[in-house]
């Protein structure tokens, strides 16, 4: 417990920290920038915006993605919007209010200084996106339009119909492609990072598998940025894309980067319910729908009537009932838990299925079908395609599903991990959302990190650090390559009887049942034992057909599942030690009337886990105390 986690928060009042820090950081002069190389892993919002901005500054950037094209990164699927404290609506918004809402929304488990900076640069993100030609929604006067999102009482969410993530990603992607054209960014597609290389205690490169040829490649750099996304796929079924994995972050973790708050996961309240055993993933229905949709269940338990046959006075609009001031726009963790309670009590749709209704009838009556189609057309269409039901005619059936992970690699104020020279951005880091993320804040954070934070802090690192020359023949690279090759060979040669897919499913079931919306000591303890058994079985009984050369999706999957299994155990441990409820982490032993009960005396801190060399050794838990100087620690209420 001797390691001290230094968050490097600059001194001064919260609103001057970033400004002063920017001035105090060292600069790299333009002629020297081109001598420095930076590797960026992942090309979603955080990675593409970082690669583009660093390239513009003149650094030599190498950007890697697992997809055939950077435009396929999962940021593309974000639907509802992006927050910014523009106060264009004159409804009382400000940088301070966005900061306040985010700290409160995160249930007081995020760093104030980081969150303030996020709110501060949020306004620049919108400016930047519009300048790139991102077609955000506009009013008839030609000015930008806003909608409301959960956990806020102002309208500060900018959007592009239900495709905000796609449009912002294409903006960042096109900026990056411009740098590719200009020669400052080299793009490597269909490449997966399988190890981080640390030389003299600093991140100096990566080991990559070329997914097309199977070749194991080594790349050197002066700094490495991980923007590899979140780990919701540990639950098998989640709203994340199929290739979303923890692998890059986990490999860095094993090389010394602490993993913070792994148990903070977001279960999104409005997803299309599970249809059956063969389901491969879940689909989100954007939170923006709660602007115009009302959530309800029948007041009668086990009610088998069709939704449209249940009269108004027999419907329980439970979010409006329990949270009169936020109503249907209660934050995600709260709305999810309430849905679970209703279903557990037997009020699920069609006589008790795992689903509740999201109803647009009143809005369609008030605004007309056209207006609703203009706002959410593509979402309604998607719902119709998946379920075969028309949401204009009958309410949507929805249920919570894993969607986002607030936990991630620990970073300081500069977004630098516990390995010097390894920076972590976007969902892959733990920094800004505490124990619950507010809607429309993921896009904001990914782009804030990439466009406006990393370009400064990486420069500062390079200017302050003496970096010896390294090349791929260095022992650390050879060793890393060797380790990767050995692991892949092992997967291929085990020739057991189970597919990676089947073990992933099994892990997902354990995680969802014991480390999902509700968690308790007994469940978590048994989950740890089950996961350890699963890990053993994985290594003795995995079957990976095909060979190491060439495209082999089963080999890719095996590596990712192996890492998810190790992560799953750590999540359960983290959840077990955190004897309180906060945000998305709900320990059933710690509640007041069904609401989360924090324990600020004991747990007002970040938990950051250190790998101890082997999956068989328990990891060491370090803490970083959180102090709240601006937003007073209080019970979070949306009532």
């Amino acid at each position, binding site marked *: 417990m001797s390691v001290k986690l230094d968050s490097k928060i600059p001194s001064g009042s919260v609103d001057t920290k970033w400004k002063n820090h920017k001035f105090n950081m060292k600069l790299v002069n333009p002629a020297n920038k081109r001598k420095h190389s930076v590797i960026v892993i992942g090309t979603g919002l955080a990675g593409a915006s970082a690669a583009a901005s660093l390239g513009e500054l003149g650094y030599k950037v190498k950007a890697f993605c697992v997809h055939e094209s950077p435009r*396929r990164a999962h940021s593309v699927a974000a639907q509802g919007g992006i927050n910014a404290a523009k106060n264009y609506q004159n409804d009382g918004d400000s940088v301070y209010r966005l900061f306040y809402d985010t700290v409160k929304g995160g249930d007081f488990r995020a760093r104030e200084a980081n969150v303030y900076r996020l709110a501060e640069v949020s306004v620049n993100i919108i400016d930047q996106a519009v*300048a790139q*030609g991102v077609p955000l929604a506009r009013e008839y006067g*030609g000015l930008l339009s806003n909608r409301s999102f959960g956990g806020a009482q102002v309208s500060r969410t900018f959007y592009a119909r239900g495709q905000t993530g796609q449009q912002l990603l294409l903006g960042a992607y096109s900026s990056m492609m411009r740098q590719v054209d200009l020669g400052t960014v080299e793009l490597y597609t269909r490449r997966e990072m399988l190890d981080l290389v640390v030389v003299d205690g600093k991140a100096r490169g990566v080991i990559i598998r070329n997914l097309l040829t199977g070749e194991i490649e080594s790349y050197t750099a002066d700094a490495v940025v991980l923007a590899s996304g979140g780990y919701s796929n540990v639950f098998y079924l989640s709203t994340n894309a199929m290739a979303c994995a923890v692998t890059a972050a986990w490999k860095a973790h094993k090389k010394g980067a602490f993993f913070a708050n792994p148990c903070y996961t977001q279960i999104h309240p409005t997803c299309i319910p599970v249809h059956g055993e*063969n389901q491969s993933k879940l689909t989100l229905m954007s939170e923006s729908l709660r602007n115009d949709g009302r959530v309800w269940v029948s007041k009668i338990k086990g009610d088998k009537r069709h939704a449209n046959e249940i009269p108004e006075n027999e419907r329980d609009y439970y979010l409006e009932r329990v949270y009169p001031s936020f109503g249907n726009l209660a934050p995600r963790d709260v709305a999810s838990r309430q849905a679970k309670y209703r279903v557990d009590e037997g009020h699920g749709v069609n006589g008790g299925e795992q689903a509740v209704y999201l109803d647009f009838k009143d809005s369609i009556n008030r605004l007309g079908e056209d207006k609703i189609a203009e706002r959410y057309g593509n979402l309604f269409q*998607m719902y119709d*395609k998946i379920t*075969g039901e028309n949401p204009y005619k009958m309410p949507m059936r929805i249920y919570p599903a894993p969607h986002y992970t607030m936990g991630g690699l620990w970073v300081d104020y500069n977004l630098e991990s516990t390995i010097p020279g390894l920076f972590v951005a976007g969902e892959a880091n733990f920094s800004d959302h505490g124990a619950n993320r507010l809607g429309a804040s993921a896009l904001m954070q990914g782009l804030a990190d990439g466009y406006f934070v990393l370009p400064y802090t990486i420069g500062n690192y390079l200017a302050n650090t003496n970096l010896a020359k390294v090349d791929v023949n260095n022992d650390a690279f050879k060793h890393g390559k060797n380790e990767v090759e050995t692991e892949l060979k092992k997967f291929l040669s085990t020739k057991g009887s189970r597919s990676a897919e089947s073990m992933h499913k099994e892990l997902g079931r354990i995680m969802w049942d014991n480390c999902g919306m509700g968690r308790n000591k007994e469940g978590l303890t048994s989950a740890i034992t089950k996961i350890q058994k699963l890990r053993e079985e994985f290594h003795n009984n995995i079957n990976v057909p095909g060979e190491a050369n060439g495209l*082999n999706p089963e080999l890719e999957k095996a590596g990712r599942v192996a890492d998810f299994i190790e992560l799953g155990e750590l999540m359960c441990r983290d959840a077990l030690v955190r004897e309180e409820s906060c945000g998305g982490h709900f320990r059933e032993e710690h509640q007041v009337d069904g609401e989360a009960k924090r324990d600020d005396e004991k747990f007002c801190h970040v938990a950051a886990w250190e790998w101890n060399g082997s999956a068989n050794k328990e990891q060491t838990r370090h803490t970083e105390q959180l102090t709240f100087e601006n937003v007073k620690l209080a019970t979070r209420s949306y009532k």
Partner: protein
Amino acid sequence: MGNAKNNINLHLKVWRQKNNQTPGEFKTYEAKEVSPDASFLEMLDAVNESLVKKNEEPILFDHDCREGICGSCGFMINGNAHGPQKGTTVCQLHMRHFNDGETLTLEPWRAQAFPILKDLTVDRTALDRIIKAGGYISVNTGNAQDANALPISKPNADEAFMSATCIGCGACVASCKNASAALFTSAKITHLSLLPQGQVEREQRALDMVSQMDVEGFGACTSTGTCSASCPKEISLINIATMNREFLKATLNKKEEASGGDMA
């Protein structure tokens, strides 16, 4: 819930090809007990899971978000790009649209500019290179003015948005008899030409992107319109007309410049 339809069985004829150097062939598989609520890719997942059990290599197809937005997936089903349902990517196509006992033929996108990598997976990086040639607005981070300083009329913003919703899946190329990438390229040219921010580079962009399209080996557009009909995002054919106009305008202006003629 959904339909109370029964599970179905299907015969699949699937193109299998080890890599670009090896010839491919059709192989047949049975998809059994498929739930009508499953997606097309989930049906293939089950077939693949049974192949892995037999220690055979699964059928390789690109896919990722499975929400119809990332543009990764896509292959021909009975000769239709993304299958029979209009405005739908194959990942969003559900099995309730198929009948018990049907035979389905699955083939990769076939186009010279999209070399086959393996089975149903092709290399579409040519589309990225078209974007790289000019599908952007040159604005460095930090150079932007206030987002509301430049109002954009709602019809223009909406139209730009409609063009910008292209997911780059390549269905337009695959379904075109000339394997033209005109719909893809024109959607980006139209999107940016409708916005005030896109004006400065408007002409150069049209020239560069169209020229890259030719370099990549895509065919010419003969206005048949199959591209738009098979586009999962229903990108309009009007984009191609816009591109032709933009390209023509740029070509005429460029000539003047090249001959040193300043008409003013």
